[in-house]
């Protein structure tokens, strides 16, 4: 009990300190015209396209559950959230909701009964959606078959289980406001910005968050991605992570549509694994190519941050020993070289290169560790219905062996990334897999 009180007191103190630092001043509010946007004139079809891009189904469907009937567990550092039923069932879904209720949820973050919604529902992004588009999304959801599936209560740690604290959170971190077109940019860029920022809410995963789960101000220049479902979502503004400045628009579209892109002179190899594979599978592969193109145009234009000197300082601490590198080299020859090549050059299309592969050299090292531990396949898509996969190595390699082989790969063939610690591998074993 004492510990809980202490935790509560610390949290409130953090809130106060953060309040002084981070009171947002630059967010726009109020209604604004949506950007030039030619979707289907039929509201239900337009709604379907928007709901697909927003990937509502992914979070609002449990494994093996009926689509949109909720119940998917979303583990976070605050506890486990369970998504609600958004089928038009009157008793358990949104059957009694009006378009105004739906707008209030998307735009303002309030439920129909007036409760404040937790921002795990990405209303801080959805607030940018225009009223016309919100109405279309609602019209589409109303056409779904109703499913009687009661909502499961969230299981949150103290003090986050007290919704009243969301009043403070909102005051600090949330300003409602529909996306406003930038008149200095073209229609396609604005459409892409609207889709990326508001509808597809990419920043929900790809932006760094503070201790209370709010997006850190982009003005602090630190960059960094976010963590979601045990994976690291790389920064879209960092050339060492998932920055897309040097890519062609066509390559970005291919990555969004298939979750994979082979390496070329301008584009390093990339593949979507973990939650991003799910986004491609459930959402982006079904999006219209003109929408993906607009998103690609916007993503390519994002300003890139300069490498941060502090990370180099920390890298010094983790320089690998010669022994570790020798062990890693031997393990690599035995387990990896057959597919990834003796010099990390890869064997397309079966295995990507590891030399110059940003997924391998990224910090934090969460994703490379997970990919070696659990392997996995990129998403199956219409364009690549039979993707090649990576075998899981947790059954055959120990944590220190995985650390050694990753350390070797991250320090070879032109790669120069910090060593991977055994502790990190051990910690990642316990993360939720699905």
């Amino acid at each position, binding site marked *: 009990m004492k510990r809980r009180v202490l935790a509560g007191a610390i949290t409130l103190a953090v809130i106060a300190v953060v309040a002084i630092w981070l009171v947002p001043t630059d967010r726009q509010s109020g209604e604004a015209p949506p950007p030039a946007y030619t979707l289907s004139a039929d509201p239900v079809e337009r709604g379907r396209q928007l709901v697909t891009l927003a990937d509502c189904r992914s979070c609002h469907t*449990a*494994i*093996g*559950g009926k689509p949109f009937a909720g119940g998917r567990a979303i583990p976070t550092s605050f506890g486990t959230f369970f998504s609600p039923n958004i089928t038009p069932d009157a008793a358990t879904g949104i059957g009694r909701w009006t378009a105004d209720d739906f707008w209030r949820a998307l735009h303002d973050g309030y439920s129909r009964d007036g409760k404040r919604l937790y921002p795990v529902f990405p209303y801080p992004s959805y607030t940018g959606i225009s009223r016309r588009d919100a109405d279309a999304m609602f019209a589409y959801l109303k056409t779904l078959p109703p499913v009687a599936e009661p909502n499961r209560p969230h299981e949150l740690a103290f003090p986050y289980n007290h919704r009243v604290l969301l009043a403070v959170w909102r005051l600090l971190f949330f300003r409602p406001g529909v996306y406003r077109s930038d008149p200095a940019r073209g229609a396609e860029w604005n459409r892409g910005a609207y889709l990326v920022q508001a509808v597809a809410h990419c920043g929900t995963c790809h932006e760094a968050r503070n201790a209370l789960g709010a997006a850190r101000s982009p003005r602090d220049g630190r960059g960094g991605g976010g963590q979601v479902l045990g994976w690291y979502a790389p920064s879209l503004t960092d050339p060492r992570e998932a920055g897309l400045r040097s890519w062609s628009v066509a390559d970005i579209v291919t990555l969004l549509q298939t979750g994979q892109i082979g390496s070329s002179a301008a584009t390093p190899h990339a593949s979507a694994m973990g939650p991003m*594979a*799910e986004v491609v*599978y459930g959402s982006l592969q079904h999006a219209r190519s003109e929408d993906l193109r607009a998103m690609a145009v916007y993503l390519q234009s994002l300003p890139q941050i300069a490498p941060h000197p502090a990370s180099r300082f920390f890298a010094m601490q983790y320089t690998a020993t010669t022994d570790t590198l020798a062990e890693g080299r031997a393990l690599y020859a035995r387990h990896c*070289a*057959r*597919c990834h*090549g*003796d010099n990390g050059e890869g*064997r397309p*299309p*079966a295995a990507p290169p590891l030399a110059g592969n940003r997924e391998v050299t990224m910090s934090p090292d969460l994703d490379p560790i997970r990919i070696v531990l*659990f*392997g*996995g*396949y990129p*998403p*199956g898509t219409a364009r690549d*219905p*039979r*993707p*090649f*996969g*990576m*075998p*899981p*190595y947790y*059954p*055959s390699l120990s944590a220190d062996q995985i650390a050694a082989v990753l350390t070797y790969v991250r320090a070879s063939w032109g790669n120069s990334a910090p060593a991977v610690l055994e502790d990190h591998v051990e910690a990642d074993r316990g993360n*939720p*897999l*699905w």
Partner: protein
Amino acid sequence: MLAIAAARAADSPQYPLDSIDQRAQPCMACHGKQGQARRDGYYPRIAGKPAGYLLNQLRGFRQGRRYFPMMSYLVQLQRDDYLRELATYFADQEVPYPPPETPRVSAATLDRGRTLVMQGDAALHLPACRSCHGSRLLGVEPAVPGLVGVSQDYLIAQLSNWRNGRRAALAPDCMAQIVRRLSKSDASAAAAFLAMQAVPADARADASFERPPQMKCGSIPNGGRAP
């Protein structure tokens, strides 16, 4: 250097890179080379099991009828046609079975196991395992699995999963009804007897049922009668 690389490429993979063999490599990390299972007995053999059974399991992991996060993670984002191709690939693998396990149970328990497997128990309304799982307990095409050639631990674990609601077959789930009537000690006895059976070299699932099963099972098309 080039010569070394060429030699390596020539002597390691026996199959072309752009092949279903290469695509199935991730499965073999746990299920063993060509799906013949590793020694620990924890991950089941999948080689030679009927393709329809394997596909039903892959879809089960995706749809929540079976629970094992690692499997759900691997199959969740793949299309049915690809899963069918992988299922068929492993169904077609003909690789040697492991030798039978040595008994860890009493002779009386083994006898009870033999009765359950070969005759069933009419008083408990338990059909013989053999009546659905094939004349040689190697399964029946297209979707009933063999019960020999997997470890005793695996068999017991699966029966407990059914009992605890962590495994289900397509509805109507006849196996769930059977497990409800099967005591824990009977489950262990049947598993012990099954794990002791040597698997013949020409092991193959039966092409069809000798007699259509009496229970209705969602995973058996057309009630087991010829279409």
